[in-house]
């Protein structure tokens, strides 16, 4: 029966070309947008090199404080606090401290350029899975000795040195001359932990304030758990240690009257939720905890609302298309079709239509993602179609097809056969 439905669906859609074209345009346009959104989400949320261990990664990006006189504020994570109080949490395999991105003027061969710089430690290269095109990462000894060494991206290599190898070359940043010890593949700007143009040991920071003052901020702490099962215990231990931090010992904190300091570990999805929806959808509570359910709820609601208009349009088109075929419905009922069989037939037809629309949507989305990648609106982002994006788009197509086909099909199945044979509804 399904084969017969599919054959009929193909013929009906080919015969009613205008209806088919209008429907396909609506479906494919909607799915282009949704697939692009899914691909963007995939790009920021999925485990992609060098972040291949996202499922056991936690990070602390910011700290919130309140003072005795009622002031509240937040600042980027303190290197000193993390280094002093958060090392050795049970279940943590590695911990790395990395500065937030800093834009600096760099010179190589007299060529000036603004680069994004990240100061970090040796564990950073063990938590992340960078592909080294030349050389390797800087070592613990380099960090210990404040060696003026740097890892750069392939994009930086190309801009500073053309197609020549960069290993051993020198780049001047912020008045310091760094020797290139490694070159890695480019990293998307949308991945906050691995993204940079230029990495150097944190000990090369001339001021060194981050190692003396909690209030200096400017860092992110990344934690790699031994297994995803350890994450709840790690979060609990982190929260417990945060409560015990003797904040009053810090001279700046004491001077400012800080009496409470709060920070939360975030899973990668929580970071995305905070960054993209923290203010607009209240995805972060007053204490800075991310409400992931709200974020995904808001995303689902937006996707649903976005799909609602073309769905209603398709429902409307389908109702008139189905009623045009009232006589067929009458014939099928007369020869033994149940209402359920008829609903099945028309839903199959609609799902065929939406899958064709979905495939066109994929082609469109592929082109849009290619253009988005090529435009470099987001530096080094590579938006790609992959299995996850394809399956999500396919699921959306089928959902869309069932949603827009079910109501007209149900309405049609309620037609009285005598009226249907006369070509109308009672």
């Amino acid at each position, binding site marked *: 029966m399904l084969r017969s439905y599919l054959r009929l669906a193909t013929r009906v859609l080919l*015969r009613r070309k205008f209806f088919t074209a209008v429907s396909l345009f609506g479906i494919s346009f909607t799915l282009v947008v949704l697939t692009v959104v899914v691909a963007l989400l995939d790009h920021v949320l999925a485990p992609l090199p060098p972040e291949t261990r996202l499922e056991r990664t936690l990070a602390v990006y910011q700290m919130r404080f309140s003072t005795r006189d009622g002031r509240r504020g937040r600042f980027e994570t303190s290197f000193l606090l993390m280094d002093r109080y958060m090392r050795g949490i049970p279940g943590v395999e590695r911990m790395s401290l990395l500065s937030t991105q800093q834009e600096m003027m760099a010179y190589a061969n007299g060529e000036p350029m603004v680069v994004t710089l990240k100061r970090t430690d040796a564990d950073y290269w063990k938590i992340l899975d960078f592909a080294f095109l030349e050389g390797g990462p800087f070592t613990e000894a380099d960090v210990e000795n404040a060696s003026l060494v740097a890892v750069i991206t392939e994009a930086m290599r190309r801009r500073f040195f053309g197609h020549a190898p960069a290993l051993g070359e020198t780049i001047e940043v912020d008045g310091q001359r760094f020797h290139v010890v490694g070159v890695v593949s480019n990293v998307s700007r949308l991945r906050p932990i691995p993204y940079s143009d230029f990495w150097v040991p944190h000990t090369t920071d001339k001021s060194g304030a981050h190692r003396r003052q909690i209030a200096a901020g400017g860092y992110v702490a990344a934690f790699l758990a031994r297994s995803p099962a350890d994450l709840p215990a790690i979060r609990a231990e982190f929260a417990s240690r945060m409560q015990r931090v003797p904040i009053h010992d810090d001279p700046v904190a004491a001077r400012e009257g800080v009496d409470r300091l709060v920070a939360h570990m975030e899973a990668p999805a929580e970071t995305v939720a905070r960054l993209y929806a923290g203010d607009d959808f209240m995805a972060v509570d007053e204490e800075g905890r991310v409400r992931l359910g709200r974020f995904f709820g808001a995303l689902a609601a937006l996707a649903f609302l976005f799909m609602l208009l073309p769905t209603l349009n398709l429902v409307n088109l389908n109702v008139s298309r189905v009623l045009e075929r009232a006589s067929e419905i009458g014939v099928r*009922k007369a*020869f033994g079709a149940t209402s359920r069989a008829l609903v099945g037939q028309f839903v199959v037809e609609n799902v065929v239509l939406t899958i064709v629309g979905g495939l066109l949507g994929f082609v469109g989305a592929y082109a849009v993602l290619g253009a988005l990648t090529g435009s470099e609106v987001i530096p080094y982002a590579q938006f790609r179609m992959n299995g996850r994006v394809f399956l999500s788009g396919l699921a959306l197509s089928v959902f869309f097809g069932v949603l827009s086909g079910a109501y007209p099909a149900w309405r049609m199945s309620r037609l009285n056969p005598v009226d249907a*044979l006369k070509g109308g509804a009672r």
Partner: protein
Amino acid sequence: MSGNAMVELQGVEKVYRTSTLETVALTAMNLSVGEGEFVSIMGPSGCGKSTLLNLMGLLDVPTAGRVAVNGTPVESYRDREVAALRNKEIGFVFQSFHLIPDLSVADNVEIPLLYRSMSARERRERARKALDRVGLSSRVHHFPSQLSGGQQQRVAIARAIVGSPRILLADEPTGNLDSQMGDEIMGILHGLHADERATIVMVTHDPLRAGKTQRIVRLFDGRQVN
């Protein structure tokens, strides 16, 4: 309800109601069609002939009274059961053929078999036999628009008989055809009656054609008058 009646109506009434109007289409209808009988229904336009046929074919439900098919009263049947009964026991031939334009001749004929558990191969084989019976086996892959009116009605008859129903209900089957094509269709119906002892109920305006059937039921203003 009597034992050997294929279709039986007892005290059937059909009233169409709108918010402002009540139209009595049939009233006090008692009719029994026996197995293997060929019955004509005659009467002026609007007298309730098609309504009667629709009630006999379970396409509509009476406002009052009882309808039984093959001895089984159907008033308590649900959609699924009525659909199964129509599928198995009843074949319809309509005045305006009602072929599905998007389907080939063979696919149109197969429609009743789609709602039975049957392989595609068996469906195709039975459709071919039914088309052979009406002399159209060479038009299996044609579409309705490529056939004459008489050929389309023959396809409709093939569709009606493909599931081997015990009752054939024909609503003015020659009404849209010229006399020669009409004669061909009547020849097929009489052949089915003679060869396969099909029970046939036919609505017609043509007294000559009605005269060749075994019994004529006459209606006037929704009542049986003979």
